[in-house]
């Protein structure tokens, strides 16, 4: 594991972060930024509407995520769903496996109800701390989904082996389910058991899509540019390695070595080049 950045890693960080900061600035100055339609996020409104029509409660979980960027991205969606629940006087349950995440989700839901001027309707029992043990949490979640006959279940966050248990619980009672995870191993399970699945970075885009906050939309455009940088780096790597295979004398270095070279090694190499 890399504990300290090498010069090449610092250059990559700058290449990835600079476009994000630039487009955030552009968006704040009023630039129009297009966001493509994401069916899974559009489905959030449908899912909430259907649950409200059926008179069944909503459920939102962040899985086994600890406090971090993933949970922060999920809280934006929770706030949106919380506002909808407050507006339509629908019950919402937030089963949690991490007490710190529960505290953050509590404040987020309170804010959502305040925004809708419905704070008196806020029920602290909406937050359910189940267990920080993976399968105890899954068992508790299953129980809530079945007992409360949830109409719409939102699974946003990090999941592991319990993902299919959670998704099947909603499937069994006919709840409309929207899942979003950045854990690629769990995506197939959600695809088969949920109605809509947001894959990877779409989870992070959900907040921008729902709020249209210029900072988030600008960041989204910056992320696209950063991905273009990755694409061109991949292309560069393919070309260099191909040339190296055919003409080894032309490329006397390995790209993987460049990534781990220290400041001193770079100085020595540049000195040699000059």
């Amino acid at each position, binding site marked *: 594991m890399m504990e300290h950045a090498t010069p090449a890693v610092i250059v990559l960080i700058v290449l990835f972060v600079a476009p*994000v900061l630039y487009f955030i600035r552009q968006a704040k100055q009023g630039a129009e930024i297009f966001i493509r339609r994401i069916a899974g996020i559009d489905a959030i409104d449908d899912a909430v509407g259907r649950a409200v029509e059926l008179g069944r409660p909503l459920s939102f979980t962040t899985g086994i995520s600890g406090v971090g960027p993933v949970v922060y991205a999920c809280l934006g969606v929770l706030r949106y769903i919380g506002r909808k629940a407050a507006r339509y006087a629908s019950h919402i349950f937030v089963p949690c496996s991490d007490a*710190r995440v*529960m*505290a953050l989700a509590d404040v987020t839901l309170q804010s959502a109800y305040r925004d809708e001027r419905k704070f008196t309707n806020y029920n602290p029992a909406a937050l359910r701390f189940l267990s920080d043990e993976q399968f105890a949490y*899954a068992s508790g979640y299953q129980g809530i989904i079945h007992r409360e006959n949830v109409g719409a279940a939102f699974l946003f966050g990090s999941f592991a082996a319990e993902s299919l*248990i959670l998704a099947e619980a909603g499937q069994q009672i006919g709840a409309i389910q929207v899942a979003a995870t950045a854990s690629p191993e769990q995506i197939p399970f959600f695809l088969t058991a949920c109605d809509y699945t947001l894959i990877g970075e779409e989870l992070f885009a959900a907040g921008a899509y729902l709020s249209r*906050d210029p900072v*988030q939309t600008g*960041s989204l455009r910056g992320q696209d540019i950063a991905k273009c940088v990755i694409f061109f780096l991949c292309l560069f790597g393919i070309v260099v390695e191909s040339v190296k295979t055919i003409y080894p004398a032309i490329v006397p270095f390995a790209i993987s070595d460049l990534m781990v070279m220290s400041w001193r090694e770079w100085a020595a190499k540049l000195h040699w080049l000059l």
Partner: protein
Amino acid sequence: MGGKASLAALGGVGFLRTHYRQIITAGITFIGGFYFFLEFILPAQIGEFKFGKYHDQISTGVMVVGAMAIGLGIINILRIHGSAILKTSRGWMNSLALLGGMFIMLAVAGSDLINSEKSVSSWKYLANLQTFPGKVLEDFQTKSIPAAERIEALGRFVGQTLDQIAANQGPLRRPSGADKAGVEFSVLNADLLQAGAHALLLAQEYRAAAPDLARIAALSRELSASLKSAASAAQKVATANYENAVVRRVQRLLENGFFFPLGAAMFSLLAFYIATAAYRSFRVRSLEALIMMIAAVVVMLGQIPHGPLYVWDKLPAMRLWLLQNLSTPAFRAVYFGAAIAGLAMSVRMWLSLERSPLSTGDDK
């Protein structure tokens, strides 16, 4: 220090008005992020300064905040399930079982933790004392510190330990059964008696008008050796007593007999859920579903090394090609996208650029 700082920061911020609270939170977030950013991009050591030396304090601070959050979790469980029991709501007996289980586990795990601490401290004292005679001699020679009183105090401590053993109380009591721990108990007694005798002789030698330094050094070495051997025997006796204690056995029963099997039972449900999920995903309702089903069949059949289903010798190579050239790049693309999005989100959090979902106010 890290823990106290975290508590002070949390306590102080809690009393401020929302606006100032947000400014201070953003400031603390920025400073914390800046430290870790510098720690990552700069070399491990610049001159005399090492970044890593503050890690323990920061980790302690984070642990303190985490520990308080566990308290919040317990309060939440008590509130939800306590009220269900009081109101005898639907499923109140489940709540009763949960709270009962929680309190039993808390009581047993707490008692076990206390026993464990007592067990370790009982032999740690002896282990730490083994260097004491050497230190006393060194102080006697270099700083002229009176040594006899210090060695006598050591002798009194050894005597007290022997008294506790004789009373058959505490972590160093006689282990039940005549197994290896019983032998170690006899060794411990003999070593402590020997250490007490050495301490007595050593104190007398220190008190002599003309102390014989060679004899003092020899006695100090023997005393240290006795204490070292006693500490080793005490560790085995204390561990045997700890492992055989009722609390420990109940703890093992709860964990190995209830907690782990229940978790395994939940995990085993996956086998059935995977079958139903596979059935749903393999229903051919579109061209994409057909392609996915063909790929899945190839991968599954290619996984079989031999037997009646091993239909074609090219299948393992096709399976490998599908996994390496189609599946892995797709996963990598997802990883790249998620990593970039996580990096951007981290930068926005660090610099407090966006409106926090935790804040109040109309935005839409």
